[in-house]
């Protein structure tokens, strides 16, 4: 796909930039490189750690002139439903400057961006960084104890938990306050469905067909987690604990593994003791050593383009977003920000590969050595009825008690399912799409 870019087209792009854990060196460098190449484009940047609040306020105010052209993507389904966003699908058909003749779509790590899985048949958010969720641990502790750092099956993972517990250490602790277990376990329904040969499962998930919380796959996942909790593999301390508290227990070797995302190394870098080396594994729920293992991933930094802007602005905004996918900008994001590279040819350069942090390497190695499916868990329809939120509330309120073996999962899943089915039945959009 080619677009015509005239350098005499003066344009100022208003940008709402999130100042996040990834820093902003990558963005400043990208703006520098872009304005060197296209001096006709200027940037009016508003940057803040709370930019999401400003974006939603501007969006609600309804003044399109005042709105950013390009902004951090926190909310999107609501904007898409209100026709406020410009699709970014066509950017994936364009070629970055450092990979002429190759479409961006073919350059991104499979699963890190999968437009056909996105909402209403289009991509609306442009990925800058994706997180990978799973189980994080100290490689040194595992090596010292001879523990399995890469269990291939569910049974092997349970054996690992038993081995850890026999040393008087809690195998798993997690931030029950924020339901961080989701980063390790919420894709496991796909894995069970895959193992059982349920080909209809994904479609049922995407369109809310049939039972969701009480699907056989969901019940199986929660029963296994509940059993792990009852055996003490998931520590009761998790209930009421925030992410810092749970991660501190792993740093102090009071617990061996903690579910989180790949940002954990950066997040805990000030408190990690000398010699602590973060490692990564996904939790296999399959007993087939050839997998696949479904790994949680999602957007951790993205951009959106406001639809009600002049075409010229939107065109240049897309060109700028494409420029963010150059390996030069990716390198700053990876090395300074701690992000995982989105370009699959990133590791082709040995120097870049060597510069990655231990955890980044551990994740990259895991993804390379295992039959992994990066799962975005996108739905194709959105429920807006309050009962949907009420059903989520039942799950969020009670999951820590289920996962630590204190409450049986089935009554809770049934309560949540009733509310969810009410929401599905009442939501006209859902009915029309089903």
């Amino acid at each position: 796909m080619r677009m015509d870019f005239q350098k005499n087209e003066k344009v100022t792009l208003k940008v709402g930039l999130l100042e996040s854990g990834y820093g902003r060196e990558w963005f400043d460098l990208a703006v520098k490189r872009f304005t060197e190449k296209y001096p006709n484009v200027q940037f009016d940047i508003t940057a803040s750690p709370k930019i999401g609040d400003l974006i939603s306020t501007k969006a609600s105010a309804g003044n399109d002139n005042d709105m950013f052209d390009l902004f951090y993507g926190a909310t999107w389904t609501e904007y898409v439903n209100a026709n406020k966003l410009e699709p970014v699908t066509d950017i994936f058909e364009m070629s970055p400057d450092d990979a002429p003749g190759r479409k961006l779509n073919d350059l991104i790590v499979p699963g890190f961006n999968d437009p056909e899985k996105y909402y209403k048949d289009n991509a609306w958010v442009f990925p800058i960084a994706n997180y990978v969720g799973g189980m994080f641990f100290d490689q040194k502790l595992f090596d010292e104890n001879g523990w399995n750092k890469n269990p291939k099956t569910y049974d092997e993972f349970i054996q690992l938990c038993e081995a850890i517990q026999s040393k008087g250490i809690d195998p798993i602790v997690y931030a029950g306050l924020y339901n961080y277990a989701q980063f390790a376990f919420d894709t496991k329904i796909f894995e069970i469905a895959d193992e059982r040969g349920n080909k209809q499962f994904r479609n049922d998930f995407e369109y809310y067909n049939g039972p969701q919380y009480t699907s056989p796959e969901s019940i199986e996942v929660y029963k296994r987690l509940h059993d792990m909790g009852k055996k003490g593999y998931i520590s009761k301390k998790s209930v009421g604990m925030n992410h810092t508290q749970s991660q501190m227990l792993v740093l102090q070797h009071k617990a061996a593994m903690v579910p989180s995302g790949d940002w954990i190394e950066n997040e805990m870098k000030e408190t990690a003791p000398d010699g602590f080396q973060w490692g990564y594994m996904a939790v296999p729920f399959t007993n087939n050593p050839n997998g696949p293992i479904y790994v949680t991933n999602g957007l951790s930094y993205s951009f959106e383009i406001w639809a009600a802007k002049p075409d010229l602005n939107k065109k240049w905004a897309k060109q700028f977003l494409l420029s963010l996918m150059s390996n030069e900008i990716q390198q700053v994001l990876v090395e300074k920000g701690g992000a995982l590279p989105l370009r699959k040819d990133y590791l082709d350069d040995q120097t870049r590969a060597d510069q990655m942090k231990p955890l980044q390497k551990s994740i990259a190695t895991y993804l390379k050595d295992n039959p992994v499916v990066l799962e975005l868990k996108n739905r194709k329809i959105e429920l807006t009825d309050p009962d949907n939120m009420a059903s989520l509330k039942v799950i969020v309120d009670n999951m820590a008690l289920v996962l630590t073996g204190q409450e049986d999962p089935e009554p809770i899943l049934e309560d949540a399912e009733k509310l969810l089915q009410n929401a599905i039945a009442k939501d006209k959009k859902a009915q029309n799409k089903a």
Partner: protein
Amino acid sequence: MPMLKNARLQKSIFLFIVVAPAFAAYVLFTLYPNALSIYYSFLEWDGIGAKTFVGWDNYIRLFHDPFILRALGHNLILLVTVIPITLIISLVLADLLINRAFAENSFYKVLYFFPNVLSLVVIALVWSFIYDGTFGLLNGILRALGLGGEHNWLGSKGTALLSMIPLYVWCYAGFYVVIFMNAMRGIPKSLYESATLDGITHMQRFSKITLPLLSGVIRVGVIFLMLSVIKGFEYMFIMTQGGPGGATDVISLYMFNFAFGSLNLGQHIYGYASTIGMMIFVLLVGLKLILDKFFAKDSIEY
């Protein structure tokens, strides 16, 4: 006569100039948003897309929503514990600071007031540390006393809400100590002197003179505490997210989650949230009217 008319006009203009800005701000920032909330409570709206008028649906839902009753129950537990405990502690401390000439009185006053100048996030973090199941101060003390010390205070359904009570009392008591001290200073010394001549004990002096003469201030204190306890949810939001198992879910947190979502409930359902807001408004007005029945409103002249 024209001069009088002119004076009246000038007075009206002056009053208008003085009152109008404040009144305009009140209308713009208080009355108008509240009126809008009434309108929103009849809508299904996510804040961005089309507004759908749903009539009384949100209000009907309110009466069938089991989480509402549970949240209100938790608010009730906080009301009947936090308010009396805060008032008793503040009155006792204020009376001690007024009637006992401790050299450190000024220091104590600052110390008690200290929580009021702390950021609520700092307070939440301090108390999270106190209640931490592994490294917490409370468990540390219990361990030192040989009384266990392994309990997960905020992670247990049985103790999570009760653990919030000392936090609330600690936050509020200092403010009311200062309020009550100032009110006690306004009570004429002659009343105490004549009572002392009649042989009154310190307890009688407190219950027969101080308390009745402070009833107006206490009434205001009860109202403010009631508002704070029902409208406040910040500590639950930071420390427990309403959990575990909804054990610390209070009505304002429930409303907030519908309006602005939290990490796990990231949707905006402004219509139903506004309906809950209307219910809280009616509840507060109702409680205020009930309070008026119990407390005499007449001011006391010395």
